[in-house]
């Protein structure tokens, strides 16, 4: 116990002594943990409005439908099946076309009673419930058509007055509605060259009429389908009920559980979640790069402290534990803060759908989310710190006490090549050659960032085309754009931190070489340009690799994970890719100019 307290006390003291570095460490891990938390809790947060809607509308646990009147008896048997406590319906449903505001849309017209149903009584948000001659529209569909109470719409050639706008939990909101008509439905974008089978509904909306009006619209009884809503004694076993009764899609009686409706209703959240999780892994990589550089710099700074610890009897194990404990403490704080920020901000990234009751609430963190986020934070810290910590712990006590710097790496061919270049480039190449591992981290950091930006550019262009295709509504596109914005801001912030941290580590590591170069006649400007160029050269390589293969591979990975079709996306034009690479190099040059300038002007005599 005493040893543990000692390790924690030493770790805390050192963190307090180097507050700026500790803050940068925290920031790097925090970016990754926040994004990961956002990704993990988004689904729960997005599910909250559906649960509210389900409660407010007496939402069904299972929705069953049949495509012909002959099967009504089968539907009737379900109403009395074991486990069913209540039901509503069967209600007739008709496939049709609705004309409003100069637009024609496919619809599923459900015939309902004017009285309150025991199961699935849609909650009216505007106006009133159905009455003869009056139609109620599902809220998201009404929003999409820009139709409200009092407007007139045409159904099957007859004019109906919109009497209400309502929400239901028996079907996902428009345009993701489930299909309850025999004609069949298809949702999403349809390629221009593909002809749909006759009668198939495309992105159908849901409207309610009285049963009498539906029957009067039907040309004959055979054109009607029927839907029934069931309430079960054990809602959590809805899928088991469906399996037991031979339902589910493709079965004798198509049935849909409330869980599958929830999944469809939160489809957008799933897309957001996938984007955020991929972003979290990218940020995790960037965090490892940040940490490796920061830790490397700190270890170099801590050489003497390590020597002192060992000189007073600290074993290599204790020294390694102290060094690791610092980063693990930061990782734990970053995990806690990331979990809190992620959980609080997740609702801002979910759709406040008109088709559901209430907004997305604060998702409660599950133990699995807490465990995973903490494990990732600790993993990032351990991956970045174990090797330098163990290496430092095993170093010679005498050389550690003498504060001997880690000798730089010699890259002979680069030294020979640099001799032929102008002074700033000569110095820059030699700075680069001294610490190849740091250069690799710089290249990886920029490559990961540019890969992320590449995907953002593609997705942004893709979303720009969406409102016209019907796959996403404008509101949904806005939500996904928010997700991309969060991605971009966090990604660019961490990349900027990385660029500055790597440059500063280079400046510190090269302070002696820079001072010597100046003592031998290099001007401060030449040293500054050399230090900045030493960052820009890897940035150029990283930016090129970030576009190809980085960006292409990441986009392909996203398509594989989401089951997306890359043919639907417009890839950036060559000029855009060139502009991306050039912009990256310019931004890195700008970010590194200040630390490089400071490094180029450090007093020579103080260093030598």
């Amino acid at each position, binding site marked *: 116990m005493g040893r543990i307290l000692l390790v924690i006390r030493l770790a805390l003291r050192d963190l307090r002594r180097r507050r700026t570095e500790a803050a940068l460490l925290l920031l790097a891990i925090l970016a990754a943990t926040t994004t990961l938390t956002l990704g993990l809790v988004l689904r729960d947060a997005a599910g909250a409005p559906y649960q509210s809607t389900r409660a407010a509308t007496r939402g069904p646990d299972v929705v069953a439908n049949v495509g012909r009147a002959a099967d009504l008896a089968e539907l009737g048997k379900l109403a009395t099946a074991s486990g069913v406590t209540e039901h509503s319906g069967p209600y007739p449903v008709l496939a049709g076309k609705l004309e409003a505001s100069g637009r024609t849309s496919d619809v599923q017209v459900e015939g309902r009673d004017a009285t309150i149903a025991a199961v699935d009584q849609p909650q009216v948000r505007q106006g009133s419930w159905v009455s003869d001659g009056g139609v109620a529209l599902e809220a998201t569909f009404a929003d999409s058509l820009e139709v409200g109470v009092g407007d007139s719409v045409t159904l099957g050639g007859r004019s109906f007055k919109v009497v209400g706008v309502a929400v239901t939990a028996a079907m996902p909101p428009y345009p993701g509605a489930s299909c309850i008509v025999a004609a069949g439905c298809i949702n999403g974008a349809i390629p221009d060259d593909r002809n749909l089978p006759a009668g198939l509904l495309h992105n159908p909306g849901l409207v309610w009429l009285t049963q009498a009006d539906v029957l009067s619209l039907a040309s004959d009884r055979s054109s009607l389908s029927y839907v029934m809503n069931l309430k079960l004694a054990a809602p959590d076993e809805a899928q088991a009920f469906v399996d037991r009764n031979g339902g589910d899609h493709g079965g004798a009686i198509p049935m849909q559980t409330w869980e599958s409706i929830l999944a469809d209703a939160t489809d957008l959240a799933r897309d957001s979640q996938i984007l955020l999780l991929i972003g979290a892994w990218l940020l995790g990589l960037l965090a490892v790069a940040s940490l490796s550089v920061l830790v490397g710099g700190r270890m170099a700074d801590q050489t003497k402290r390590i020597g002192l610890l060992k000189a007073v009897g600290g074993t290599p194990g204790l020294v390694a534990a102290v060094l690791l404990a610092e980063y693990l403490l930061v990782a734990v704080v970053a995990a806690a803060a990331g979990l809190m920020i992620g959980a609080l901000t997740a609702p801002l990234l979910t759709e406040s759908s008109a088709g559901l009751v209430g907004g997305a609430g604060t998702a409660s963190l599950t133990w699995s989310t807490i465990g995973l986020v903490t494990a990732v934070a600790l993993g990032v810290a351990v991956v970045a710190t174990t090797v330098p910590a163990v290496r430092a712990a095993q170093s010679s006590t005498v050389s550690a006490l003498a504060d001997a710097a880690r*000798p730089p790496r*010699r890259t002979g061919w680069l030294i020979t090549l640099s*001799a032929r270049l102008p002074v700033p480039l000569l110095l820059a190449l030699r700075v680069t*050659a001294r610490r190849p591992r740091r250069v690799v981290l710089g290249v990886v950091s920029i490559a990961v960032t540019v890969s992320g930006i590449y995907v953002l550019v593609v997705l942004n262009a893709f979303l720009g085309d969406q409102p016209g295709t019907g796959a996403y509504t404008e509101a949904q596109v806005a939500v996904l754009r928010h997700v991309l914005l969060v991605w971009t801001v966090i990604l660019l912030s961490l990349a900027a931190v990385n660029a500055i941290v790597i440059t500063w580590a280079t400046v510190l590591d090269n302070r002696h070489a820079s001072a010597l170069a100046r003592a*031998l*006649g*290099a001007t401060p400007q030449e040293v500054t340009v050399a230090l900045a160029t030493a960052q820009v050269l890897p940035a150029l390589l990283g930016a090129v690799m970030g576009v190809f293969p980085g960006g292409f591979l990441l986009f392909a990975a996203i398509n594989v994970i989401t089951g997306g079709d890359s043919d639907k996306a417009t890839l950036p034009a060559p000029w855009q890719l060139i502009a991306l690479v050039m912009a990256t190099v310019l931004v890195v040059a700008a970010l590194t100019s200040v630390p490089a300038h400071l490094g180029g*002007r450090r007093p020579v005599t103080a260093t*030598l």
Partner: protein
Amino acid sequence: MSNAADTPVLSARGLRKEHGKGEGLVRAVDGVDLDVSAGETVAIMGPSGCGKSTLLHLLGGLDRPSAGEVSLNSRRIDNISEKALARMRRTDVSYVFQSFHLMEELSAMENVELAALLAGRSPRVARRRAEELLDQLGLAGRARFLPSALSGGQRQRVAVARALSNEPLVVLADEPTGNLDSDATLDVLQLFKDLHESGQTLVIVTHDARIAATADRKFSMRDGVLVDETLLTGGTTGQLGALVGLED
């Protein structure tokens, strides 16, 4: 404190360097006047912390004085830009440091040619000059060795070769034998004697009496002030030269 009738190559007037403020004010160099003629070797001796190294830094433009003037070849260098000072260090002044300050990742040859490359010489010219100097200093066989594979004396000889690479007007040496054992010290003493004889202007800061004995003039420094000047006719002479083993 000059004995030179001709124009000095390096000159300081009322040179002062202060650190801190108020009660914490420290005058590392306090009103130094000094003239060094072309081809002359000047030694500055004194205890640790008396301001010798600071004075050397001021003379070579590595540090800025708080007051006073420094001139090189009759041109003021205390008020010129950092860029101009850097250009001056390429060709007119060079340093030899106590702890050598060689680039650890560069071979002996690459360390020597670095100064010439920074001065804008072509890689071929820089390489030829480095080979020539290493050969003169008896390091031809060690040209491709990294500093870590060289002895202390050999490292200091590489540092001297680097300092001579651009044929500077003045070489400023800061405790050049401070980190060396006895054999290496004699080695470096001989080297500075040879440089002196070849007409190279040298200012050497040391607290080793043997190396000071190789100089034309020796100054003693206390608390930032040059307190005493001794003229040593013709450099190393008499019993002291014999004592250090430089003369028969």
